[in-house]
């Protein structure tokens, strides 16, 4: 392959002129974690002489036409005047940046179009461009430029992780409940080991008799190259990932669910293991109707040696679903390390270094999306700004005989920028190309960098599917649910199912019945307990939505049921073995009083929480 002179974008007979694209992504506001609808959304740049904002729901709300209703976060400008716009469905559907849609603005300046092209676009009404061939061409260019942008992709990944962490905000009430239940265990006459608040999956595993590993087949969501075909359901995690990075001291919440989600109701058991063991890693579960929120916290002691980072381990979830023989597995590789921001680069007025940082040969993908080639230099960012910049960036393909490859640069930021390469339709897979980048400064000074590239076809990603693989799972091959949950209403109060075979009363919260040959442990919740009835009325009076009311009642029920379950286990472990009165099992009246106390505490706590 011979190298020739730099050929910057060649003229195209069908060239309609130029457009310029700017994309801005703002950080997610901290307030958004609380109550978006109640935030006064003043812009960060608010100064004394500027109008106050109307409330808005997103970081870009105050930059839209109307903070509450405006959705034109993609604007098309002619001489700075907005002539058309798109809402954030463009960002989601065309660019695929779902989690950036409320933080992103895209500005497309079409001043550089040829007059004929502008003439086709602009309408006398100024109410929008004509949606014809010029529009389509612009639309395609915007998608090609931004869809493969690695900066945006990175932000999208971060945003996705942030969305998961958002759920930690909802955990506050549950944490308080956990603490309360913990404290309760200390005062109650129990002898269960471990943390009652952290719904310890491994403890549950032990309680379910699952301590002995037995070889067995597993079904996991994997690419088709693994194992044999199997059936749904499988375990899935949101955000979808096979690996996850944890920061010491910072909660990370993963949502484990089933795919399809409707199978979750058939979940018989869910356990987790961390292999190799990491004592400082706390895993807590909060089970809900359609998923389980798994809170991960790496809490190192003060004397933890920083040189031990990164800590690597694998978090495995194993689930049994009713009617399914094989255990379902979900494995997530965990990397634990503190966040260390990269050092600020030293940037100069007279840059001396220009280099391509993308691994070579750079793969240029066929298709409608541009390839972003990473470039670094040590020049200050504003050297290339303005109508008469001091330094000019030029780049292009220097392979002999190859024309029609359009290239542009992104604006440098902290010394980093990209060369965008748009392959022409006649590019062929395997074609080897050489590119040259020149930064031309004042007085004839210039810096040069080159890179080799190969035209490639983006492989069709193998869609993961349920695969049967070999492995080891703890416990037996089949298991029934650990308990059955039943609700007691007022008309059933006389059925003698409360503790000690007594009838129910208005102050009874719950009770359990021990398992028999014919039925599992049965947890009974009194739906018509007077305090629960008052709580329902309180929620309704606060005009909470139906879902919010359901969610809080679910929280109450699940926690009371969980506590009942623990009471049963405790009672089983405290069989009288000697004369020591302090180790006797609780009496039915003591159990009745205990679950009442727990229920009342929960209700009071939920009444004062938001």
């Amino acid at each position, binding site marked *: 392959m011979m190298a020739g002179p730099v050929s910057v974008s060649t003229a195209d007979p069908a060239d309609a002129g130029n457009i310029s694209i700017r994309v*801005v992504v703002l950080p997610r506001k901290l307030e958004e974690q609380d109550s978006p609808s109640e935030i006064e959304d003043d812009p960060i740049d608010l100064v004394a002489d500027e109008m106050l904002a109307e409330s808005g729901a997103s970081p870009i709300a105050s930059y839209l036409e109307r903070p509450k209703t*405006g959705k034109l976060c993609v604007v098309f400008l002619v*001489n*700075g005047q907005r002539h058309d716009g798109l809402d954030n469905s463009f960002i989601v559907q065309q660019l695929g940046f779902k989690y950036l849609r409320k933080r992103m603005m895209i500005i497309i300046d079409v001043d550089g179009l040829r007059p004929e*092209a502008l003439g086709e676009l602009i309408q006398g009404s100024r*109410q929008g461009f004509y949606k014809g061939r010029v529009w389509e061409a612009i639309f395609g260019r915007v998608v090609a430029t931004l869809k493969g942008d690695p900066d945006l992709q990175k932000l999208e990944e971060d945003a996705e992780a942030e969305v998961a962490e958002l759920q930690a905000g909802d955990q506050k009430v549950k944490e308080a409940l956990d603490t309360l239940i913990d404290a309760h265990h200390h005062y109650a006459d129990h002898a269960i080991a471990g943390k009652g608040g952290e719904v310890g999956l491994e403890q549950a595993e032990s309680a379910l008799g699952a301590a002995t590993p037995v070889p067995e087949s597993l079904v996991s969501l994997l690419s088709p190259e693994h194992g044999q075909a199997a059936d749904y359901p499988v375990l899935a995690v949101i955000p979808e990932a096979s690996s996850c990075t944890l920061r010491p001291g910072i909660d990370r919440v993963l949502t484990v669910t089933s795919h399809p989600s409707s199978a979750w109701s058939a979940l018989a058991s869910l356990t987790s293991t961390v292999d190799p063991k990491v004592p400082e890693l706390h895993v807590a579960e909060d089970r809900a109707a359609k998923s389980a929120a798994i809170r991960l916290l790496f809490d190192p002691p003060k004397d933890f040696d920083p040189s031990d980072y990164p800590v690597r381990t694998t978090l495995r979830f194993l689930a049994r679903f009713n009617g399914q023989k094989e255990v379902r597995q979900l494995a997530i590789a965990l990397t634990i390390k503190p966040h260390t921001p990269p050092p600020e680069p030293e940037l100069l007025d007279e840059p001396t270094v220009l280099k391509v940082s993308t691994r070579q040969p750079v793969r240029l993908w066929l298709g409608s999306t541009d390839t972003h080639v990473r470039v670094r230099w040590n020049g200050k960012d504003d050297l290339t700004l303005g*109508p008469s910049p001091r330094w000019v960036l030029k780049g292009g393909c220097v392979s002999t005989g190859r024309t029609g490859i359009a290239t542009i640069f992104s604006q440098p930021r902290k010394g980093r920028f990209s060369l965008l390469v748009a392959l022409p339709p006649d590019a062929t897979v395997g074609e080897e190309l050489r590119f040259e980048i020149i930064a031309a400064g004042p007085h004839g000074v210039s810096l040069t960098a080159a890179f080799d590239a190969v035209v490639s076809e983006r492989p069709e990603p193998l869609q993961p599917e349920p695969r049967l693989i070999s492995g080891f799972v703890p416990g037996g091959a089949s298991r029934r649910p650990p308990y059955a949950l039943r609700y007691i209403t007022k008309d059933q109060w006389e059925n003698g199912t409360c503790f000690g075979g007594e009838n129910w009363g208005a102050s009874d919260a719950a009770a359990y019945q021990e398992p028999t040959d014919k039925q599992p442990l049965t947890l009974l919740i009194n739906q018509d307990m007077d305090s629960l009835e008052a709580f329902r009325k309180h929620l309704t009076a606060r005009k909470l939505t139906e879902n919010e009311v359901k969610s809080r009642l679910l929280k109450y029920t699940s926690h009371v049921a969980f506590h009942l379950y623990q009471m049963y286990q405790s009672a089983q472990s405290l069989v009288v073995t000697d004369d020591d009165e302090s180790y006797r099992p609780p009496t039915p009246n003591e159990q009745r009083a205990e679950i009442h106390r727990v229920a009342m505490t929960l209700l009071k706590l939920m009444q004062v929480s938001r």
Partner: protein
Amino acid sequence: MADSKVTALIDSPTLLSRLLTTKTATAVENLLAELPVVPETSYVWVDADPGKGWHAGKLHWVPVGRDRGNAGRIQLAGDPYNPSAERLINGMEAIIELARRRELRDDAAAEPPQSPREAVERYFGLPRLDLIPRIKDKDIRHGLEERLREARRRLLLRLEFDKKLREFSLEIRDFGIGQTPERVHNTLLSLGRTDKADKPYLIGVFGQGGSSTYAASRYSVVISRRETEFIDGDPDGIGWTVVKKIVPKGRRDPYYAYLAALPEGRVPTVILDANVATQFESGTMFRHIGYDFGRQGSAVARTLFYAMNHVLFSPVLPYDLYALKDKADAMHGTAYRLARQTAQLEREGKPFLDNSFQPQSVAALL
């Protein structure tokens, strides 16, 4: 009503004061009642013979653009904000044109700027506004911000609200080149006529964008005065008129008309004297009275700030917004506001992205 008295009012310096303080539909109607206006039912403008039925010495309603079917070209706006933005664009052009004329006065051979932005950079020393917050050199940035403040004072958008009558007025005032009374009807009140197409440093092309403001208003008061050194042989003076919508009885084709003093469409004039000259500096004022924002109250002021910044997303020139208050909001467009925010985020070390790409070519067969 004696003609001499009427004529005196038309040309009277007190009329200018009245026009400048008229901000409600009732005030306009009271003023019109004192003027010798021939009712629209008594005089109907006819393209072939506009002098037919004309009463000398009186004012007549003449269709804007002298086009009886002008409603279809005026009622083009889908919301209240785009038309105001068009008026502001016209104001920016008037300011640029004044600067260009001064350049030509000093150097008749000066090449014209090739774009509005180039004109603004050449005449006002301002780059694209959203570049300014990104300039890291404090001295340079502060210098440009001072220029911004100066430039803003040449163009004003003023929102007022009469609480009693529950009426908005929206005024767009530029201190640009203005028009002589002899030319107002062929420029400011024309439709689809433009002398901008061969001036690459101006923005509009269709010559009718701003006229949509008439459709959003019950009345519009228009006042213009040419910068004295560029009256090009016309008599000096202040041209004025009032625009309203006329719905002829029994017809379905309304039209927009303005008060004309002569059958060819010329607007009435306030003769300049020392008193008048100080009341109205050169430039143009459009005051749209009874402006329909679709809703009432201070929320309109807030919405106006965001909407105008969004419609004029990256204006070539800044302007001042007086929205129901005496203190101006600086209007630089949302692109500038975003750049200012990202600059602040950068200083605070917070994560964000503000990425611009070089101009890139668009392939489309034309």
